[in-house]
């Protein structure tokens, strides 16, 4: 399954929307977008996972990288809409509270 991703600026918040599968195969496709957001110092980012069906540890790592790099710039990343398998994985890794804080 492919990954479709898009970014949209909404009132100063960048919404990064991920649809499909974020895994070892597709996570590399997301890295240039993450680089761009970090380099542009976008400090308010919402990752919308409502359309995400499947995530694996590589996909989690990509979101953690965005979170950490944005935080080191003084910014904040929140994750919304996670459901089903991705939500189970975030809870298992105890990242659900981190990303919504």
């Amino acid at each position, binding site marked *: *399954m492919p990954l479709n991703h898009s970014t949209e600026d909404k009132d100063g918040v960048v919404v990064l929307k991920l649809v499909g*599968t974020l*895994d*070892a*195969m597709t996570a590399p496709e997301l890295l240039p977008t993450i680089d761009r957001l970090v380099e542009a110092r976008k400090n308010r980012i919402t990752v919308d996972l*409502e359309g995400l*069906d*499947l995530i*694996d*540890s*590589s996909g*989690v*790592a990509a979101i*953690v*990288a965005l*979170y*950490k790099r944005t935080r080191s710039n003084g910014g904040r990343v*929140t*994750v*919304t*809409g*996670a*459901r*089903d*398998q991705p*939500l*189970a*994985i*975030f*809870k*298992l*890794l*105890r*990242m*659900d*509270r*981190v*990303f*919504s804080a």
Partner: protein
Amino acid sequence: MDDGGVIRLTVPADLKFRDVAVRLVAEACRMIVRPRPLQQSPASSATTSSTHLDLSDRFSAEMVSAVSEIFNNIAIHGFANRPVGDIAIEMTVAGDHLAIEICDDGAAFDLSQVPKPELDKLPEGGMGIHIAKACVDELDYTPGPPNVWRMTKYTNGSRIRKPRRMSSQPL
């Protein structure tokens, strides 16, 4: 279903074939947790044939998570410095559990050397085996060749609490 059945799949140990394995595992899970009625409505047929992967039940979500991580491990590390071989998957579908055996001829892996990830530090790696272990009831590995991963998941023994759907709320 009452009687057990065996499903076998062999694919190259390449990430681009993982989706095939994942979909087959999801179908095997569905046979256990949501057996299809004899008469299927056109609407449910359409849903089944779409590209959307339905992992809304806990059993399927966890089993697919475990197989995905093991597949990643073999494809990324097992054949890192050698020609890509095959991954052979054998699924035994029983009434109350699904047993999956995954074999490969890649580099052997030392499960005892995998540290538990320090989740409080938000790791960006080393989470795969932790996920696999947590998502099934039994996980066993025998180094080879062939290397053999065996995992079993019971319908009444899941360890992760069933996730709630939170479509528009923060995590």
